[in-house]
Each structure stands twice: as C-alpha cells, then as structure tokens.
C-alpha cells in the first residue's frame, strides 16, 4: 500500500482546532494555573465586595505571613504527590521539628542557628525513614505516614514535656516571620527578580535558537516577562505601603523557585515525574526508583520541618497544637486545588504557592467577616472536595481521550 496515502489521514486525525484545544487543556488540567488564577481573582473579588479591608495593604501583608508555613509544607507535599503518593505526617513532623528547635534553643541554650539546623535534620531524617519503610517493604505510603502522624504527635508531646508550651524569645528565630525590609530593599529585590527572570527567558531563547529549534515568539516571551514584571512591581508596591516586604515571603518564594527548578530542570526532577507517571517504565530505563522515593519523602520531611519553624516563629511559641488541626489537610489540599494531581506525574511547585494563596485567602476572608468556626470548617471542607473532584474529572477526561 502507498505510504503517503496511509500517513495523511492519521495526521489530520490528530489536528485539533486551537480554541477547542485550549478549552480541553483548561478542563483537563494542563492549564490549571490559569484556572487557579481565575479562581483566586473570584475569591478576592467576593471578599473585597463583602469587606473593603480585604484587599488593603495591611491585610494582604498579613495574608502573606499566614500562608508562609503552609506554603513551605506544601512544597514538599508537591514532590510526594508527583510520585502519586501521599504523606499524612507532614503536619505532625512540622510540629515536632518546631518543638525540637524550641527545646534546644530555649531549654538547652543552643544557638538559634544550630537549633534550626537540628530541627530541619529531624524532619529530613523522619522523611527518609518513612520513605525507606514505604519503598523497602512496599507498604502503602498512606499507612506508613498515618502511623507517622500518630507517632510524631506523641513525640511532640514528649519533647515539649510537662509544660506543654514553650515561648520563643530569641530574636533570630522570631525574626524569621517578623522581619520586614525597607522600601529600598524591596525595590532592589523586585529589580533582581525581574532582571533574573528576563535573563533566564533570554538565555533559554538564545540556546534554543542556537540549537536550531523553534522557540516562542518574541511577543509571547515579552508577554510572560511583562506579566512577571507587573506582578512583582504591584506586589512590592502593596507590601511597601504597609510594613515592607516580609522576610517570610522571601523565604517561601526562594524555596518555591528553587524546588521548582529542581523538579523541572534537573535529572532528579525528571525522574520524579517518571516514577510518578510509570514506575515500571522508570525502572526499566535504569532509574533507581526506590532511591527517588526515599529522597522525595526526605524532601517532604525537610520542607515540613522548615514550615513548622516558620509557623513557630510567627506564633512566637510552640505548643501541643503545633502542626495539628487542619494544617495537614490544607497543606495537601493547596497543591491539589492549584492543579497538582493526586494521581501522580502532573503538577508543579508553583501550585504549593498558588494553593496556599487560595486557601489562605478563604480563611483570611472568613476571619475578616467574623464567620463562625462551624461555617469555616464547612467551607474549607467544601473547597477541598471541589479540588479533588476537579482533579478526578480532569483525569477521567484525559483517560477518555486516551491519555492516562
């Protein structure tokens, strides 16, 4: 049979009109980032309509401080979700790490730096342990980390001892969540962010052109650059008109950008996606699947500890409730709301930030409206359910169109 005649219908069968394609990608989660931006805009509009203090500089600064801890924990959760696994211990680990830091610093007089390093090491060790148990014995990660959730909560009570609460006074520790930079420093940060982003875009474009590949048009590159520049400038303007750019936000952004770089631009990150997409294929490609799994749970434990430290710094104390309540569920819900799949292999670290913003905005807005706990719990539960449903529907539609 003629080959030319055969290949032609197959090609046209794959061509899909562009607008339909965009709509499909929006529904199926490829454009989840756009979906979450629209959702966030709606949430902000509703709360601003109900209470005009919502979008004030002061409240937006508070919002940034409120989302730091949860966002940092979510960064680790994203890695675990990319594997298609779950870590139910991150809340408890964040509380335990904060308690370790507090006890070492306050009761044993360790330097704040050493206490922080020890706390992070505890989180990392717990993550590595859970990851090893999960991968070595092929126990569902859900069970291993559920056991961890209970055990580390117990460890938290044990570490805190009879007092049950430790107040943090060391300025190095409390400063983490309570430092604000001057206006000038804020603008310098903005200039650095915009400059570095521009350089990355330009160099990436040049590399592709040098390799003889298609690259995005200058219009699209310019649009992306302009968008980032405008968001950065608006954010710094707003933050400067209140107390200034908070250190906490810088820490969160640094981890989000750094960990996004690792997951999207390094071989390790590529392997995380591969294991989450098809572990057997990854294994046959020579990837040491279990090593990736252990490392990812190590990252989750580490990020949980860092989040716990930031939460303690903001609260100025560690108590028996640290890392408890709905923190765990919100830290997992955030990335899912923002488009990281619960089924593995799809997502980005940005969803940790965007998800924390969505969840933080809802919580902050309901506080401003002085809604009762009853309403807050139900609304938050509803949002979580909605996020999971959207993720599941997106997956079904992908399967429907032959994609898994």
């Amino acid at each position: 049979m003629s080959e030319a005649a055969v290949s032609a219908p197959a090609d046209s069968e794959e061509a899909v009109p562009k607008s339909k394609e965009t709509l499909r990608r929006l529904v199926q989660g490829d454009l989840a980032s756009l979906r979450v931006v629209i959702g966030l805009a709606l949430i902000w509009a509703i709360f601003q309509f109900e209470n005009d203090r919502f979008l004030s500089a002061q409240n937006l600064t508070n919002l940034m401080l409120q989302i730091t801890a949860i966002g940092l924990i979510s960064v680790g959760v994203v890695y675990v979700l990319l594997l298609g696994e779950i870590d139910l211990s991150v809340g408890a680990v964040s509380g335990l790490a904060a308690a370790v830091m507090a006890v070492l610093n306050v009761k044993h007089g360790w330097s704040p730096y050493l206490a922080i390093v020890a706390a992070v090491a505890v989180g990392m060790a717990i993550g590595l342990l859970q990851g090893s148990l999960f991968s070595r014995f092929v126990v569902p990660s859900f069970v291993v980390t559920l056991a961890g959730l209970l055990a580390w909560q117990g460890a938290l009570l044990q570490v805190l001892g009879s007092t049950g609460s430790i107040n943090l006074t060391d300025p190095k520790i409390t400063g983490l969540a309570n430092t604000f930079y001057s206006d000038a420093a804020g603008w310098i940060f903005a200039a650095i962010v915009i400059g570095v982003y521009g350089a990355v875009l330009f160099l990436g474009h040049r590399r592709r052109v040098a390799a003889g590949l298609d690259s995005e048009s200058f219009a699209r590159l310019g649009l992306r650059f302009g968008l980032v520049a405008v968001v950065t400038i608006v954010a710094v303007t707003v933050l400067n008109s209140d107390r200034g750019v908070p250190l906490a936000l810088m820490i969160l952004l640094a981890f989000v950008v750094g960990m996004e770089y690792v997951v999207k631009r390094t071989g390790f990150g590529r392997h995380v996606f591969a294991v989450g997409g098809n572990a057997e294929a990854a294994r046959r490609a020579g990837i040491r699947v279990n090593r990736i799994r252990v490392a990812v749970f190590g990252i989750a434990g580490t990020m949980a500890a860092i989040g716990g430290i930031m939460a303690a710094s903001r609260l100025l104390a560690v108590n028996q409730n640290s890392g408890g309540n709905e923190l765990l569920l919100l830290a997992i819900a955030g990335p899912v709301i923002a488009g990281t799949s619960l089924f593995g292999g799809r997502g980005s670290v940005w969803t940790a930030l965007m998800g924390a913003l969505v969840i933080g905005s809802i919580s902050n807005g309901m506080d401003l409206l002085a809604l009762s706990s009853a309403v807050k719990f139900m609304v938050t539960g509803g949002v979580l359910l909605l996020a999971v449903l959207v993720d599941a529907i997106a997956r079904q539609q992908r399967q429907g169109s032959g994609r898994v």
Partner: protein
Amino acid sequence: MSNGAPLLELEGVSKRFGPVQALDRVDFAVHAGEVVGLVGDNGAGKSTLVKTIAGIHGADEGTIRFEAQEVSIAKPQDATELGIATVYQDLALCDNLDVVANLFLGREEVSPGTGGVSRQLDEARMEHQTSQLLSNLAVTIPSLRSEVGTLSGGQRQQVAVARSLLGEPKVVLLDEPTAALGVAQTAQVLKLIRRLREQDLGVVVISHNLVDVFEVADRIFVLRLGRAAGEFDAEATTEEHVVSAITGVGSEGEKRNGETGEGRG
C-alpha cells in the same frame, strides 16, 4: 539476505522453568540488515527466546555468539552493552512526559551550566537530537513537546522504537509491535521497521499477525512447544506453510533447513 556471518547467533539454547521445557535446543540467527519474523502459538517460547537474548533470564544451555564472538548474556545490561535493544509490548513509556523526555529517560543530557553551578537538563540539545533521530527514521510526530499519552498507538510504538535506537544498538528485538494498532498505524510501524533494516540493523519481530510478518520479514522463524519448528524465506513461502508449522498440523514436508522434526509428546 544473509551476507556473511550472523550478527547474533544462538546455538542449542535451552531454558527450563521447573518441569516446563520453555526452549529446547533452539538455533537462531539474525544478520545485519535482516528482519526475522519470530512466530509461534501462545506458549511456543517466543517470549522466552526474546527474554533470553535480552538478558532477562539467562539460558540454561547453549552458546550465544555476537559478531562471531561467544558471549554470555546474564542480565539486561549485558545485552544493552553488546548492542541489543528490546522494545516490549507495553512500550514502557511515561505518558505524562513529552517525547523528548521519554526518549532520554534515564540518560538525560546535562549541561554543565555556568562554572558547573547551574547544572541542568540540556533540553535544547536533547530536543535537537530527538528531532534528528526521528527525521532519520522518517517518523513524524506533531510536536516533540506533546505528552506521549496524547499520541496515537502507532506514534507511541515509533517513539519506543526510536528510544531503543539512542543506545546505537546493532540488533533490535520488537515484541508484538503491531498488536492493537489500526491499519494506518500498523503501516507506519512497518515502514519504520524497514527503515531499521535499511540502516543495517538486525531486527527480530515477534508477532501473532502473519500478514504483518509477511509484509516486513525476510525470514520467518517458527517456534512450537519450545522447539524450532521451521524456518522460511518470506519471499518463497505461503501463509499456509507457516501456519502448519505453527500448529504442527499439515504437510511436514514443507519445512526447510536444520529441522529435527520430532513428533509431539
């Protein structure tokens, strides 16, 4: 087709799983620039033979020669190092990754970055190599950056074959490359197999589909109950002859060379 010594040659290879004799003194050879169709009924030992060559499980008896040198293939890496690539039926692709990422999975190109500080995946180089490789093979895929899960079955098969070629193998084993493909897609894959032959590779195609085998194979090798049950020149034989060798029913006299032809026990 068989010019000179075979690229890969198996002599008297046997493999036993407990009481089951999966392969019984099988002689098998592939030459450079030759497509061998490996056919047989379910349980005839096709998969066992391929897995033996691919190093998934070693042979119990027999010798394997690669480029006239006697070699031992005990694990998959041995086969890969010799230059034997295998594409399994399930393709082992990550549907959530794009074509480039799948091709380079497990052997990503890394650029040293500025002063070794910003080591990162060299996407531009990988994409460049991918597009060269695919155009060499005359494989057309709408976008190298589309997720493999969005591709058609034929395209996925072609991506899997292309991936096996990155290690510059000399022999390629294809396990049911046309199973579950439509007519047009099957034609694409068969065209790709012919490309591999043009590039002087030795190709082994396992298939249930005799029509496809006759379409591409130069030589057809039949296994039945773990034994070699016939070897045919694809040009000079008919489907009936091959079928009778597969089933063991019909005219035994049509069998060609080196066939012991014992009855079934």
